[in-house]
Each structure stands twice: as C-alpha cells, then as structure tokens.
C-alpha cells in the first residue's frame, strides 16, 4: 500500500507493495521512526528519488515511548534539525499541548525548549508531511536483507550495498544508497516479568532476522546489545490528581521551529503535567519481584540516565523519586508516568504504582515492558554516518546506540543528506563539533563509541556558549541551503534576513558609546557596576541583567527601533558576545585539527612513527578520520598527536611532491 505516489515512478493503479513500476531509487530508507522519517524527507529535499520502506504505514511517526519532545540538550537538537528544514520541530509545534522552556533561570545557552505532545496529532503531521514531499515514495514491507556487490575500487570500503531484498518473495529493489533506521527492531526482544517475546515494540511484528544476519555475517560488523524500557500507561480518571502538584505550561508557548511565530495550541488550551513521588512501598515491591524480573537480571547495558524504577531503587535505595504524570493527548484518557519504566510482571506493576498515594486506585491500560536490541558499534561509521566497510550503507538512530527521539531525528537528517549526496555523486560533508550539537552527537558516536544508550546533554558540547538553541538558524540554515542542499528557499531567505538584521542591529548598538554615568542618566532605573569613567557601547550594555533592548530602543528610537523584532535575540547576543570572542580561538584550533584528515588505509600497528603500543591499538580500532577525532580518543597522548601531525604533514608534502613529478 502506498501512502503517496510519485507521478513519475508509479502508474496510478499500482499502489500495493511489490507493484512498484520503478525498481531503482537513489536512496532507500528502511524504517519509519524518527530517524527514518527525517532521513527520507532530507534525502528527498536534497534531490534524491527516495523510497521509505516500513513494516506498517500507519505507525509512521508514532511516539513509541514518552509523549514529549525536546528538553535540556535535546531541545538544541530539535532546533538544529528544524534549522536544516527537518520535520520534528514543526511537528512538535503542531502537536504540542504543553510548552515550557526548561532551565529558564540558568542562562539562555542552556535553555531547553520542551513540549508534551498529542500522540495522534504528531503522527498525523509527520504522515501528511511525508505525503506531500516531492520525490518521496512510501512502501509497506519488511526488509529481509541487503543486496551487495564488489566495491568501487576508487573509494574506501570492502563491499558495496546496492539495494534491499523484501520479504514475501517480491523482487529486490536497487538503490545507490541505503539507510537503515530499524530502531529497537534489530533482533529485538521484549521483556515483561519472566516472559520474553521477539519484537522491537509491543503490538508490532518482529523484524526479519535476515537483516541482522547480513550486518553480522556478510558485512562483518561489530554488533553490541543494549536495553531500554517503557512505563505502564495509566487511566487518567483513576488517578487522584488532587494529591499531585499541578505544573502548567509556559504562559506564552515558544515554538520549536524558526518558521513558526506561534504554536497550534493556544496558551490557555495547554494541558498540565502532574508531579508526585515514590514511597518506601515502591522499593519493597521492586525487591519482592526481583526474582520474577528477567530484564533486570540480565547484564545488558541500560542507560544510567533513563533507568527503570527497578534499577533506580537498587542503585540509590531509601530515596524518594520524582514521578511525572504527563498528558498523552487532547482526546486521550491516559497519563504517562515518566520515571516509572518497569519490567515486572503486570500484577506486580499494578501493586507497585498503587504504593504511590495519588495512584492508590489507579488502573493500568497497558503494562510497561523492557526491550533488548542489537546495535552496530558506531565507531565503524564515518562522519557522514556511512558504514566505513560498506559503500552506500548508512545507519541512523537507535541502531547506532543512541536513545531518544531527538538524537534519532538528528542522525536521520544527517544520514539522509549524506546518502542523497552520495547517490547524486556530490561530495560528502561533515558537521563540526564547533558548529552544532548534531556535530557533537555524530563525533561522539563515531570517535568514542557507546557503552550505554547515548543521550545528548549540554555538557557534551564544549562550545556551549556559542551552540545555543536560539541561534541554530544562524549556524545552520544558510549552510544547509548553500552547501548541503537540504534547506528550502523560503527558510533560507528567512535565515538571511535574520542574519543581516541581527548584524545591522548589533552594529547600530555598537555605534552608540557613552560613559556609564551618561547611560544611567539616559536610561534611568539601571545599575552599572563599571567605574564611572569607562565607556560602554549599547551591545556591551546588554550584558547587564536589568538592561533590555527595548529600553535602549526607546532611548534611541531613531537608529534602534527598526530592530525591535530581534530584541530577545539581541539581548542574548549581548550577554554572550565577550565569551564568544574567547571561544572563537579555541574553536578555530579544533576546526584546524578537524581539517587535517588522516588516511583510512593506514596500518597503525606497523606505521613507522614513534607511537606506544597502546596508542597504536587505540588508533587501529578507531581509525579516526581526522586529527581532531584522534585527539578525542581515550588513551591518545599529546605526544602521539604530535607524531600523527608530523606524519600527516609529511605524507601531505610527499603527495604534493609526487603531484609535481607527475
């Protein structure tokens, strides 16, 4: 069944799987979750004829776990995906029913835009968005394996992926690039109490074992196993909400997307979240049920930051834990208990939640469960998210060992851009850590690898003062249009207008320079700590807590009032400007290191440079793409970097000389 047909490729009558007129695409995306949908949309935006294959079309865009988007660190990713014209930001603005900026009191660099979502609206938005994307076809089916052939000798890689095999005997489909975004479905196993069943999500069929086999055996990739879980869903009417703390959304919702001035949900229509706490009784139930809990007894690595209630209680006993009861949608009669992910047998789950006073009479609609799944160790990927060994194969999302919708969407978008560019014979690009959280995410994955599901935090970004959620458009949208080709003209024009407007406004602010005494006379109720003789310009003045751009604009309406629409952003720019200047130098150094690429065909174990055996082994395992990546490898000493640097410079020079000789 086709959700959307492309006029060029399909006859109007051929709508079922296996009846594709065209068996050749630029890009095939396998999986319709957050990574898959962003990947497919991005590839199509770049200009590739794209096919999205998913098990069930009606589950495209489903929020499998929590009904929320964004947060601290994650909100940055949503804003960046939006700045590159991705889907999730606009979908969040459409589906959001409760908006708040987390960390409001801690400084704009770490603000975390977040929203509770209506599950139905989110899914509908994503599906209709994909439906109207040109060059994108959607096919329902299960992928059984990958088509491979001899590699292109001009490029690194031992094998070439040329398409996919569909289950049920249909003919294989060819493509120049294939993106796998299979989430938890790769050899997925579901745990509840002592029962274990095959699958990646409750209610969906398990994915074919053939794909896992291809990755392991045919491609010889290193595979690891991770686990995650989801809490039971609770019937709202059975909860005593009077015993909880009611937390309303922000009075003025802030949209995720740079294109939206407001959210679909009106401020007064927002639904609240409810906060409650665990009791010692919860701990008791966990401990009683431990022998019935197959998931917890296994030693597969789970996340430290999104653990089940069982592992929280076991690791930090005797503590009261927070439980957030989150709305699931405008029309939904369910609440999602954030913090109560569990894998106990269903009857114990009910006993456990009823130990919480507000949930004393609560009913469970669907019990919580755990998932264990395979992931591909992401150190085997290049910065474009292409598998180093396999030409044309890209991976994104949980298959790379990450957790979270936002992390998946960010990778999906980048894999989509890369796969499309590869298919269209355009040069592959890399996103720098110095420019985006997406760059930080990908660099961390491919350089450090993962030992537990990877989630974004602001503390992972060393240039946090510069990489803010408010300026993602300035950092990415123009590049996205000019270099990557994944940004629409409309967004590009808006980003250029914003960049120019902010630049002019800052220049205007800097042109107004006065002594502190004069400023205080002019503006009245402000307090400046600087010595009275020192001169300050308007931009520097914005660094002070109680100075707003509006105040300055009303004092100098002639040159500033034209920029009033930027006032919030100008205030933030003014606050961080001095620190931006300081970080710029360090960012430049990192960028330089990232520009020094290391050859991929080097045998580090025998390389004739002075390196310790430990360093050789680390380098051999990681095969870093750039000197910058090498510096971030654990166990690499500064002296090893010096030697690598010299080696790179020397080989560069030798290559140059060779060229001269030719």
């Amino acid at each position, binding site marked *: 069944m086709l959700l959307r047909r492309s006029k060029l490729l399909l006859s109007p009558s051929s709508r079922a799987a296996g009846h594709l007129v065209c068996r050749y695409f630029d890009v095939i995306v396998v999986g319709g979750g957050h990574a898959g949908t962003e990947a497919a949309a991005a590839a199509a935006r770049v200009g590739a004829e794209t096919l999205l294959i998913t098990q069930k079309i009606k589950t495209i865009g489903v929020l499998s776990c929590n009904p929320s988007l964004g*947060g*601290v*660190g994650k909100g940055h990713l949503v804003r960046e995906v939006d700045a590159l014209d991705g889907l999730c930001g606009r979908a969040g603005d459409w589906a959001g029913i409760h908006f708040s900026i*987390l*960390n409001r*009191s*801690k*400084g*704009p*660099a*770490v603000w*975390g835009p977040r929203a509770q979502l209506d599950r139905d609206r989110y899914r509908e938005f994503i599906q209709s968005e994909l439906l109207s994307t040109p060059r994108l076809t959607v096919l329902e089916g299960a992928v059984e394996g990958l088509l491979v052939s001899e590699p292109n000798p001009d490029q690194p890689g031992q094998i070439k992926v040329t398409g996919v095999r569909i289950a049920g005997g249909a003919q294989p489909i060819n493509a120049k690039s294939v993106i796998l975004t299979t989430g938890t479905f790769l050899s997925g196993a579901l745990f509840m109490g002592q029962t274990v069943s095959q699958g990646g999500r409750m209610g969906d069929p398990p994915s074919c074992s053939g794909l896992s086999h291809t990755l392991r055996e045919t491609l010889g990739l290193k595979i690891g196993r991770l686990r995650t879980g989801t809490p039971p869903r609770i019937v709202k009417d059975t909860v005593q909400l009077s015993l909880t703390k009611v937390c309303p959304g922000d009075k003025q919702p802030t949209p995720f997307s740079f294109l939206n001035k407001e959210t679909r949900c009106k401020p007064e229509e927002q639904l609240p979240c409810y906060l409650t706490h665990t009791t010692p009784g919860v701990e008791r139930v966990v401990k009683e049920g431990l022998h019935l809990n197959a998931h917890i007894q296994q030693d597969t690595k789970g996340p*430290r*930051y*999104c*653990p089940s*209630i069982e592992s*929280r209680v076991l*690791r*930090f006993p005797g*503590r*009261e*834990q*927070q439980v*957030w009861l989150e709305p699931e949608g405008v029309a939904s009669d369910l609440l999602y208990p*954030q*913090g109560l992910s569990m894998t106990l047998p269903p009857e114990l789950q009910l006993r456990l939640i009823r130990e919480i006073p507000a949930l004393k009479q609560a009913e469970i609609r669907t019990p919580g469960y755990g998932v264990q799944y395979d992931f591909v160790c992401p150190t085997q990927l290049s910065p474009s998210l292409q598998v180093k060994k396999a030409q044309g194969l890209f991976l994104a999302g949980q298959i790379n060992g990450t957790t979270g919708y936002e992390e998946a969407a960010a990778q999906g978008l980048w894999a989509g851009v890369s796969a499309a560019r590869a298919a269209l014979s355009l040069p592959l690009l890399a996103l720098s850590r110095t420019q985006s959280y997406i760059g930080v995410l990908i660099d*961390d994955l491919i350089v*450090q690898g993962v030992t537990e599901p990877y989630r974004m*935090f*602001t*503390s*992972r970004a*060393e240039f*946090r*003062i510069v990489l803010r959620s408010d300026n993602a458009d300035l950092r990415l949208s123009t590049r996205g249009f000019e270099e990557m080709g994944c940004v629409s003209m409309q967004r590009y024009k808006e980003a250029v207008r914003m960049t120019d407007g902010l630049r002019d406004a800052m220049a205007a602010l800097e042109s107004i320079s006065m002594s502190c005494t004069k400023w205080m006379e002019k503006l009245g109720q402000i307090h400046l700590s600087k010595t009275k003789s020192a001169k300050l310009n308007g931009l520097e003045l914005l660094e002070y*807590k109680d100075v707003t751009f509006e105040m300055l604009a009303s004092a100098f309406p002639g040159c500033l009032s034209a920029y009033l629409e930027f006032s919030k952003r100008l205030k933030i720019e003014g*606050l*961080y400007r001095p*620190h931006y200047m300081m970080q710029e130098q360090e960012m430049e150094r990192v960028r330089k290191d990232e520009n020094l690429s290391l050859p991929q065909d080097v045998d580090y174990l025998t390389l*004739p*440079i*002075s*390196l*310790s*055996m*430990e*360093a050789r082994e680390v380098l051999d395992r990681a095969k870093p793409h750039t000197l910058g990546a090498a510096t*971030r490898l*654990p166990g690499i*000493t*500064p*002296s*090893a970097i*010096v*030697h690598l640097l*010299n*080696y790179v410079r*020397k080989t560069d020079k030798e290559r140059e000389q060779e060229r001269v000789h030719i």
Partner: protein
Amino acid sequence: MFLNSIAVWRISSFIRKEFRFNLTKNLCCKGIYDADTIFALSSGHGMCGVAVVRVSGPASALVLQSMAGLSRGLPPPRTAVLRNVTDPRSQELLDRGLVLWFPGPRSFTGEDSAEFHLHGGAAVITGVLQALGSVPGVRPAEAGEFTRRAFHAGKLDLTEVEGLGDLIHAETEAQRRQALRQMEGELSRLYQGWSQRLTRSLAHMEAFIDFSEDELIEEGVLNEVDLSVLQLQREIEGHLQDGRRAERLRSGVQAVIAGATNAGKSSFLNLLCQRPAAIVSPTAGTTRDVVETSLNIGGFPVVLSDTAGLRDTGDSVEMEGVRRAKERVQLADVTLVVVDSTQLPQNYQSVQNFLTDHLRSILPNEDDLTASLQRCLLVLNKRDLLSRRTVDGLQKSISQAEGLPLASLLSCQTGDGLDDFLDVFQDRMRTLCGDPLVGSVSLTQARHRCHLQQCVRALSQYHRYRDVDLALAAEGLRLALTSVGRITGKVGAEQILDIIFRDFCIGK
C-alpha cells in the same frame, strides 16, 4: 676557603635553555620517526667509579651484538651480564663491564635500549664512546634527547619531563633535590588533586544544569560547589604566593649590585666571582651597561648583575646605563647597595639618616620603600681606608640603627669582611628559595604559574556569573579545569558524566 665553593653555573643554565629549546622545537616541527640510534654518557663527567653509557634506538641490539660479543643472542631483557666490551672495527678490548638489554616498549625511552656499566676512567669512556659512534646509524645524543624520546613514547607526563630535564642538568645540590621531588610526582599529585576537585565541582554544576528540571537535584548542590571553588581558589592563590621560591631556585636568584658611582660595585662583583668579569677603574662611570654573571652561593644559584653607578649625567650612553640599572633594581630579588664608607659622615649619629636618604635615592620608592628596603642588603666598601677606631664605631652604629637593611663592612681590595657578608647573603638565599625538602611543594615552572593564574582568573569568572547565568559560571569552571589540565592532562566530558551518574540518581 669560601671562594672555592663558588662555581660558575652559567654553563648549566645554558644547557638547560638549550634542552628546553630543543624539546619545544622538536615537539613543534621536527622528530617524526626516530630512526637514529643515540648514545650518551649518562653518569656525570670526571672521575668516578662506574660510568654508565646509554644507547637507545633501533640499532641498540646491533650495538650489543657487535660490541659485547653477543652476536649469537641477546641476554634476557633487563638482566645484567658481565661481558668484554670491544671496538667493533679493531676487535680491540676496551673494558670488561656489565651490559643490559631493554627491548622496547618496556624501556625508559620506549625504544630498544642498552646500557654499558663501565669502569670510570677517561680513556675507557672515550674509547667506548668513539667505538659507539662508528656503528652505522648510531650517533651521539643531543641534550635532553633521551627524555624527549621517553616523552614521545608516552612514558612521562609533562611535569615529569620537566622534573627530569632539570635533574639531568641540575648542577647545584638544592636544585637536584627539588627536581627529584618533582619527578617523584609530588607536584603532579598536588595538581592532580586540584584537577579532581574541579572536575567534581564542574560535574555537580553540570548535573544541576542538565538534570535539575526533572530530577531531585537541590540548589544545595550549587552551594557546595561555591564553597569548594572558594576553597580551591584560596589554595591555588596561596600556592602562587609562595614568593616565587621554587622558581627562583630553578632559574637563580636575581641579585643586583647598585649604588653611586665609584662606590666599588664592579670590584665587588669581581670579588664575588673571583675573576675580572667587569672592568674596574678609578674613573667614575666606568660601568655603563649591565654586567651579568652566575654564581653558586652555598648551593643556591644566583644571577649577579653589576649596574652603572646612579648619578645625573649628560652622557647619553651613561644615561641609558642608568635607566637600565634602575630597571634591574626594580626586578631584583635582592639589591646589594654598595656604599663608599669613606663618604659616610664622621658623626656616627648622622650615619643612619645619611644611609636612609642614600637608599631612598637608589631604591625604587614610588610604591613602597619599606618593601624595597626589605629586599636590600648594604655593603659598606673600602673598609681598608678607614682607621680601626672608625671601623669599630661604624659597626656599632649600624648594628643599633633601626629601619636599615642588614649591613656588612668589607673591603673589596683586601677581602676583609667578605665571610661575614657571605653568611648574611646565604641566610637571605635560604629565605628566598626555601629549603626544597621542607614545607609545601612550590612552583618550579613559569609555565605552571601561568596556567594556575589562568585557573584563578577563571574561578573568579565562576563567582561573577554564579547568580547571573549558570552557563557562563560553568564556563568559568571549565576554563579553570582546562588550565589545570594543561599541567596534568585533560579531562573529558565522559569523566564529568561519570561523576554525575555516580553522585546523583538521574532517572528521567
């Protein structure tokens, strides 16, 4: 007797500079693949019982095979064997000694290495060194090259290299002791401890930023960070205010001879270094530029500078000399003010006022004359021209004077009174440098000082933004950690996250 103990240590300081230069140069632009095999006499020069010659590099095995008769097989690693050492060209027997084989990477340099423990005669050593030089691919080591190779092989961290570099070239006893202590990692441990505490503070701060919205992380966490940062700041500042003692010990105490023209400053310099380092003449204004020499005073290194006599002059060259003299006095750790004692007033009561006025004209007094006076020692010269009675009277009056620096009455002509002066000077050295084996570990490197100063500045950024913008406050902690990390090694984001998850129950 004392004069024998004065050794010129300028050479050592030259070598040290050279070593550091080579280290930096090689780190920056040279030294890719150490294909060469190097050798050097590792024990001291001169007569000694046992001399150790070290060899490092890929040809080490070849050296052992061709010079120690081991062509049929190398000895077990790190085991001493007694062998005949022969010249590979002539097969002539050079010595009989212990030979050791250290296959890389488990050696000091990380490369294949060998050691020859020989009899310490000059002829033996020269013979072995010449023989080594004849083996193909083997050459004498540059200063500090063994250490550099060890560093490149990841065998030493930066503080250890600095400690080792100093040890190799430590000429004075006190320097050697301090270098040893640094190499043992005491300084590393101190900095490491700071780094760990900073990491923890930063982790707690980051936990508050990244998780407090969803988790039970109380604001109390930040109060703890406040306290910890304040404590740390105090400790680092205290460390920085050690009066530059250890750094002085490394690079020498700056002692400047100053005074009026013809007071005998240059004669005093020549007396101290026991050679005519400066031109001496009865003409006022003979010394026009700064003359500098290095001395060892009781085990402490001293850089002694003679300066132009301070007077108003129309001669442009001399004027420049006077300007430079004043500049030196500003920067000095000790100012030795030489006074012509025949110019002192006959009336002993007015000697104190005279000297106070005189010092005021010579010492920098814009900021704080008391501080300048504390840095000063008085040398009353030309004692031989005074009568016995005058000498006694003078000595009595200066010993009773209040507010005057310590004074020594001596004669550069005869050397009378020099021992008394040296006792006073040595005491002062001890105060300035400290005994390296007593008290807290102090700074030895200007580099450490610079990073620690940056760290303290960054910590004040934390306080400045603590109530305004937590991202900027955390940035202060990060910068502080990076600065300390420049000394001890870096701290990555994962380590910070490890602490977050160890110390907090994060459950979202």
